[in-house]
């Protein structure tokens, strides 16, 4: 018994150490986000909160326009999360609950896009979106991301686990496919909806390369690229303000993740089941 306790103690110690290493950069970023340049450059460094917290955050928000960029990021992240969830749900509904010709080919067509990350085609996508006249618009940041193999696959896996007796019963009761989807399928798939919400929100919130290329106008830019602009100014960087910007930019995705992390972990486990 003693040995087991000692063992447990070692495990706890190692875990706490790892947790601290994981958290350290963010904790430090927060501390320095409250300091004035003089406090940041002091030697030895101060590991306590500084006196410029309000000032740094307000400068990052107003003068570096993170407030505007945050609004844009929210807009596109929510639009894509909602749109992609609906579109994937519809596709999975067709694939699981309907009999129609060429079904296997359709599923393959969707799955193959797993091999086509946006980054691979940025040159051609840039030309296409520019020709459509969408540069500097929300459409450029939203529409190309509205469909996904991952979402369709997650919903399909979920539907396949729901007993067939339910759909048979619904049919006997005279419920058409859309009524069945709305009244039975959707409430039974809320865990997948939650997993989709966290995966897609985080993915869109963290977009960087594509907005950097397609958005050339400040008023439509997203928050991650806004951070980049803060570090590339002409003057000596005021790191306190940049760290304030980093903390602001990470909070929304982190909050969504924390709220839905249980569904996120389970949703992923689900996608792994054969």
């Amino acid at each position, binding site marked *: 018994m003693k040995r087991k306790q000692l063992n*447990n103690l070692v495990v*706890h110690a190692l875990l706490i150490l*790892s947790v601290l290493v*994981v958290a350290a*950069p*963010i904790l*430090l970023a927060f501390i*320095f986000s409250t300091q004035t340049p003089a406090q940041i*450059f002091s030697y*030895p460094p101060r590991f306590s909160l500084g006196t410029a917290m309000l000032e740094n955050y307000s400068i990052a928000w107003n003068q570096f326009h993170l407030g505007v960029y945050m609004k844009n990021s929210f807009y596109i992240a929510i639009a894509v999360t909602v749109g992609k969830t609906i579109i*994937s749900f*519809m*596709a999975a*509904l*067709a*694939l699981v*609950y*309907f009999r*129609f010709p060429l079904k296997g080919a359709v599923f393959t067509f*969707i799955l193959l*896009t797993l*091999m*086509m990350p946006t*980054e691979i*085609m*940025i*040159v*051609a*996508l840039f*030309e*296409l979106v520019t020709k459509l006249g969408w540069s500097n618009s929300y459409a450029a940041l939203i*529409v*190309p*991301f*509205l*469909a996904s193999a991952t979402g369709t696959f997650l919903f399909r896996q979920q539907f*396949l686990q729901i007993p067939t007796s339910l*759909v048979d019963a619904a*049919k006997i009761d005279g419920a058409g496919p859309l009524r069945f989807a709305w009244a039975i399928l959707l409430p039974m798939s809320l865990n997948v909806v939650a997993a989709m919400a966290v995966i897609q929100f985080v993915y869109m*919130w*963290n977009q*960087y390369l594509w907005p950097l290329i397609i958005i050339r106008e400040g008023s439509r830019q997203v928050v*991650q*690229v806004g*951070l*980049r602009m803060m*570090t590339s100014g002409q003057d000596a960087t005021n*790191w306190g303000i*940049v*760290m304030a910007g980093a903390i602001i930019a*990470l909070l929304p*995705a*982190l909050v969504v*993740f*924390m709220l839905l*992390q249980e569904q996120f*972990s389970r949703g992923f*486990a689900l996608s*792994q089941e*054969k």
Partner: protein
Amino acid sequence: MDTHAAYKSRWLPWVLLLPSFVILLVFLYYPTIETFVLSLFQVAFLGLSKSFVGLENYKILFTDPDYRQIFKNTVVFAFFVVIFSMAVGLALSVLANQRVTGWRIYRLLLIWPYALSPAVAGVIFLFMFNPQSGIVNYLLEISLGVAPDWLTNPTLAMALLVFVAVWKNVGYNVVFYIAGLQNLPGEVLEAALIDGATPWQRFWRVTFPLLSPMTFFLLIINTIYAFFEAFPFVDLLTKGGPSNATNILIFNIYRDGFEYYKTGMAAAQSVILFIAVVFLTILQFRLGEGRVHYGG
């Protein structure tokens, strides 16, 4: 498989699939094909004129020493990111899976960097590793008496990129490995316990082989992460420098395509990356079959 397909309609399934079809066709299939086409052209500034050059762009890619350096960097970077992300992720998962009290909280505190963007991680590390005011050099100086200039030394710059990419990505591996560990068949582990195997033997001879499907899946996912999602790290921390030492393919595609306006060259490099991804995916399907040990 088709037992769920209770409904029959000539048009409704196609209506339901239409939005997915249109988006995937226009914004994924078409640009992918167009990338192949563009890679055969030399495109003048802003696409004003295009001239067909056949495989010329690829010839340059494989003979120019600068491009060869970029391929080498990409492989080195991906190799170390994948190995360290997975090894650390597995080690932490085994620790967190010891059924100590509060393992759920430990899991949460280990996986939350998943929600951080590479850009946020990038700017924070840029500051921490800053030679003048960064905290890392302060700590190194008081403990070891050294204050390296991270961004001007080729090896250190690459090491820094690998470090930040791994730090950001370990949590993702923990999510999957913990799920994998919890799905392991209990009876096999108990049998090993009864046979008197030491924890070390139990891990390498029983647990690790049983996790092999998960390991293989993560190998692919981590490689794709290193290929594509590392762009902000390079863009914010090193800009590919010093002297191309940390220039990896995805960063060079951006640079050729949108700073130097060499669209054809950027497209050719995209095709190379695409082929690598297709190859990895096929490998995953091939090797994944028959070797899958999902418990329960």
